[in-house]
């Protein structure tokens, strides 16, 4: 890089840590922001879970604080229906757009991808900085909506019109739309950057089929973000106009709201919003899951000490998955009066998209066969990902067939399904990635004992939260009921599951304490003797073998590596060690 000469020492604190153009610092900025928002989104759902298990009862310990914060929406510390709806909408929004996407793409992608492909930085460092700052502004807008009169958006993370448009009692939805526009812009800037970086800045010898699978996952995710987000950005602006400028893109004629004729012009279509929303939101699901699959693949190869089985078929599957994810969106909309042919089309594409997922998961399991498996903390999370993602994927089948979708649509079965994909699925993969790359970022491994103390309870409590949802779904409990179904008079045993889930959620919260301690303590503790080596996991990919731990500031590599072989050459017969780095020249 041109500014090689003056990296490091002569930069001001502000330039180095706040307005940095270094992809590693930006990755860390994304990571910290995303982790804070994940914790915040989790706190919201804890409060919702409390309310569902104990409707109309004051939240213990922090009820008074809630009342101070939310006034009449939390009078006496009781969560009211509108506050519940706000929390629900914001939980979804925060977890997806401010938590997991920034963590999976913004943080892991930014930090790891250039290092894995041997690039000195992202292709457009300033664009990269713009992306993280636009994300920050979007986060601030979303967060500040908690403190406006009437509270934040309350129309679900899907923000279906007309409900989202007619809410005149609060500006929360307007904040939501503005915030979304920032977050979408941030993702678009990031996506362009990843695509150019991966296409243009691969180190010599890093051919497409030598790319680590994680890079492939990020590459496809970036395509999804780039192509799927613009329609939602447009739709977001249109809904914003419906709310503030009196247009009616999504507002039909003849509405009577709260007994009074609604004054909008009319002629709009509520279904249009759903199409535009899901045209993004389904590919978005794969943006949540592909980087997770990438991380899991890295860790499984490394800790089974053998190459990934079927690397090529995994790559082709992930490309195919990316393509198919653009033509399945309307399976979220079977009940919007869908005809036979359209529903047949979307059911068929939905069944087809399950096949590449099956191929990837099967390949990962088969990769373990014949391995020499190390059960360290990142590996435990990566392994747990497989059955959890398995449940998530399988429970998608009855929802993807319109016939069985009828009883299950909009019940807790759906909630259980997608949470299995993203919570014990993606989030476990994110934890795996944090434990795995932590020594690269800080030079220090996180503590194994605390790691296991984090993993096992998390695994149990995750299932304690999400499996009962599948049961409630079969029983027909609708989602988004603030009293957890009490008014519907579901049987005692069904309602008791709410208590089970609430306790499990609390357990899950406690299970994160070892992680937080481990995380903070490892950052601030002294480096031990023998630590700070480049490659503590004996990995093959170049971010481990050719960059320091932590890597040097701008530039990453003292010498840009030359790549000679595929990404996962572990236990090569005839080799003297059980890993052969990508950058190791052939002995001949």
């Amino acid at each position, binding site marked *: 890089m041109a500014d090689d000469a003056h990296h490091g020492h002569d930069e001001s604190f502000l330039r180095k840590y706040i307005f940095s153009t270094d992809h590693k610092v930006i990755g860390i900025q994304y990571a910290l922001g995303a982790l804070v928002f994940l914790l915040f989104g989790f706190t919201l759902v804890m409060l919702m879970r409390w309310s569902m298990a104990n409707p109309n009862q004051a939240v213990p310990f922090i009820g008074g604080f809630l009342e101070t914060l939310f006034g009449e929406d939390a009078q006496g510390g009781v969560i009211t229906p509108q506050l519940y709806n706000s929390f629900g909408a914001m939980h979804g929004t925060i977890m997806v757009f401010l938590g997991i996407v920034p963590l999976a793409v913004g943080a892991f992608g930014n930090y790891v991808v250039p290092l894995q492909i041997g690039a000195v930085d992202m292709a457009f460092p300033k664009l990269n900085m713009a992306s993280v700052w636009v994300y920050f502004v979007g986060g601030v807008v979303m967060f500040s909506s908690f403190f406006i009169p009437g509270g934040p958006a309350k129309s679900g993370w899907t923000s279906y019109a007309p409900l989202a448009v007619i809410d005149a009692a609060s500006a929360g939805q307007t904040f939501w739309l503005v915030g979304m526009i920032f977050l979408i812009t941030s993702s678009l800037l990031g996506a362009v950057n990843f695509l150019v970086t991966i296409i243009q800045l691969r180190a010599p010898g890093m051919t497409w089929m030598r790319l680590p699978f994680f890079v492939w996952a990020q590459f496809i995710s970036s395509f999804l973000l780039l192509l799927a987000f613009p329609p939602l950005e447009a739709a977001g602006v249109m809904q914003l106009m419906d709310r503030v400028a009196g247009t009616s893109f999504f507002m039909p004629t003849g509405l009577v709201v709260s007994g009074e004729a609604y004054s909008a012009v009319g002629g709009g279509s509520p279904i249009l919003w759903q199409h535009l929303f899901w045209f993004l939101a389904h590919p978005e699901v794969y943006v949540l899951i592909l980087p997770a699959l990438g991380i899991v693949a890295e860790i499984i190869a490394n800790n089974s000490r053998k190459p990934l089985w079927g690397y090529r078929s995994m790559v082709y599957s992930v490309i195919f998955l990316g393509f198919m994810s653009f033509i399945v969106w309307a399976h979220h909309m079977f009940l919007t009066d869908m005809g036979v042919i359209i529903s047949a089309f979307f059911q068929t594409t939905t069944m087809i998209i399950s096949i590449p997922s099956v191929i990837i998961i099967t390949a990962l399991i088969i990769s373990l066969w014949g391995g020499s498996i190390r059960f360290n903390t990142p590996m435990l999370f990566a392994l747990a990902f497989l059955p959890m993602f398995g449940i998530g994927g399988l429970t998608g089948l009855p929802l993807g067939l319109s*016939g069985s979708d009828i009883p299950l649509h909009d019940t807790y079965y759906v909630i259980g399904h997608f949470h299995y994909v993203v919570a014990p699925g993606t989030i476990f993969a994110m934890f795996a990635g944090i434990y795995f790359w932590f020594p690269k970022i800080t030079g220090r491994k996180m503590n194994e004992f605390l790691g296991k103390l984090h993993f096992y309870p998390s695994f149990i409590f995750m299932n304690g939260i999400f499996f009962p949802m599948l049961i409630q779904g079969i029983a027909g409990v609708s989602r988004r009921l603030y009293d957890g179904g009490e008014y519907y008079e579901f*049987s005692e045993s069904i309602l008791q599951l709410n208590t089970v889930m609430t306790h499990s959620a609390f357990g899950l919260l406690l299970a994160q304490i070892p992680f937080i301690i481990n995380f903070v303590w490892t950052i601030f503790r002294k480096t031990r003797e023998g630590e700070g080596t480049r490659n503590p996991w004996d990995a093959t990919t170049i971010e481990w073998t050719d960059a320091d731990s932590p890597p040097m500031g701008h530039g990453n590599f003292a010498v840009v590596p030359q790549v000679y072989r595929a990404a996962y050459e572990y*236990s090569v017969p005839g080799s003297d060690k059980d890993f052969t780095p990508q950058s190791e020249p052939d002995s001949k």
Partner: protein
Amino acid sequence: MLELFHSWGLPIDASEHGHAIDGLLVWIHWIMLVLFVGWGLVFTYILIRFRQKKNPTADYTGVKSHASSYLEVSVAVLEILLLVFISLPIWATRVQGFPEDDASALQIRVVAEQFAWNFHYSGSDGILGATRPGLIVAGENPVGLDIKGDPHAADDIVRSKLLLPVDRNVIVRLVSKDVIHCFSVPTLRVKQDVIPGSVIPQWFRAVKVHDGFVGCAQLCGLGHYKMKSDLSVVSPEEFDAWYETTSAQAAAVAASAEDEDEW
């Protein structure tokens, strides 16, 4: 599997078409169970057999057989079978199989609003009266029935509970006054979004006398959790008796109603 689902709280199936849906549900869950248990056993076996202590050196090549391809193909085949032979036919009867020739089919207009269901029956003349949004008065005329303008409107029944006869086809036309709702009747295996600006028909036939509920399955605001009405499916005799009496009462009220004055 169905017994298990019922023990988990799956509501009784009181509709003619519901067994096909339940059947699909059961088939899929068997496949899911077999796949999950199969995968799980292989996975556990691998983790135990190939742990580092037991197997200190990894095998570079790993699995050579193509067993997994057969597995993937068979999953695909099963999905196609379920899709083509169960799910598509269910959807075709739901969407296209309306009993249009059945003159005795009961026609009900369902008007959803925040946060209530209104069920509008045609009354003894069998013709739904005209409605106009401008005539809606909460508590008095919730669906905007045009009693003065349309002679068919006078005997119409509008109420907030759904009463249905057993063994008779029912066609509901779903409309919403304000936001998107979802007409959900678990015991009749019916669930359909109600979208403002559209009239969406649905049909079903109850085959069991029972009490259930009509719920809303789509977030519609802060009272969403309370948007529930009672459903009673009764014998044809009981239904007809109720229908005639109520319709006659409505007609009497409409007849005695003076013209609303202009002030």
